[in-house]
């Protein structure tokens, strides 16, 4: 590993952390979404600053090429975040559905009270 690739690894990891924390600070990212990105950034920073930890972890699990552990962990984190987003989307859809129901019921009630919408039933 050259000095350039060593620095490149650290800068990349720091970039993730800086962007995640800055978004969090500006209120454009909620804590529960930010936590995964911060976790990924911290892991990348540790592996970047101390490459020995990466080799040790890879050796522990039995992965021959340590870089493969990086790929595995990265993909795992991205998958989990994706899943979290799908779940969040479902929850939002559910809330939108409930809101739509409320709007429809209120609208019907308002037009009934105004005497316009639902006319008196034909006898």
């Amino acid at each position: 590993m050259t000095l350039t690739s060593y620095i490149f690894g650290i800068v990349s990891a720091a970039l993730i952390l800086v962007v995640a924390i800055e978004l969090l600070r500006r209120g454009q990212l909620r804590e529960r979404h930010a936590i995964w990105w911060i976790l990924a950034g911290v892991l990348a920073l540790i592996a970047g600053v101390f490459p020995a930890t990466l080799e040790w972890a890879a050796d522990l699990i039995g992965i021959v090429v340590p870089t493969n552990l990086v790929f595995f962990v990265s993909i795992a984190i991205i998958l989990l975040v994706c899943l979290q987003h799908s779940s969040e989307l479902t929850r939002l859809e559910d809330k939108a559905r409930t809101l739509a129901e409320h709007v429809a019921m209120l609208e019907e009630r308002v037009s009934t009270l105004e005497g316009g919408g639902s006319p008196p039933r034909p006898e």
Partner: protein
Amino acid sequence: MRGAPPFQATPAADSNRIAAVPAPFAHTLVVMPAFNEEASVAATVREVTEALPGIEILVVDDGSTDATVAAAQAAGARVASLPFNLGVGGAMRLGFRYALRNGFHNVVQIDADGQHDPADVPSLLNELEGCDLVLGARFAGTGDYEVRGPRRWAMVVLATILSRTSGTRLSDTTSGFRASGPRAVALFARHYPAEYLGDTVESLVIASRAGLTVRQVPVSMRTRAGGVPSHNPLRATAYLARATMALTFAFMRPVSTYRGENP
């Protein structure tokens, strides 16, 4: 066992809205989900009013882009208009919530395209006196409705599984012609799936697992105004797959999901 018998005239929370209506339909609301049905909704509303004098009809406009709302209002129905399309299940949950909030005990679902004969509603409501949910079954004798091939097999598989779950012999589980009693209305106001097939297949599982009793009565079914049911084998297979998935997930959910507060 049940909250209130369907035909008893009790002062409801919002009694001024329904007091003028004579029994036996005083506490029954017809819910008609309609998505771009301007051609048929008015005629269907009038037909229901004629066949069942005094019954209240709520047309749930499911985000239609045509004149469905105006047509339904002109025909004398109450109209609740969803701001965007939610599917039949979404429209029906609104119907159940509306019924709960406005003091109706029973909900009868009738399609806006006129394929259901309102003359069958009294027999549905009669059967409802002894149970919580009544299905109008198309293959149970009356009418000339017929489906063949893989789609038919899918329906048979569904019927077999759901009959076992509900403890009743059901022959037409995907029927959209059904009547719900007070317990079913309260349950469905909380849990009525908006997914494809959720409104028919999964809702039956929800009702059975929550301890509600289900029955079916034979109804006549007219051919749909907008064409015939698809007999494409590919589509039928996809239908079976989606139905199986809907069933599987319905059974996987914890039963505790179906208890809890009313909305």
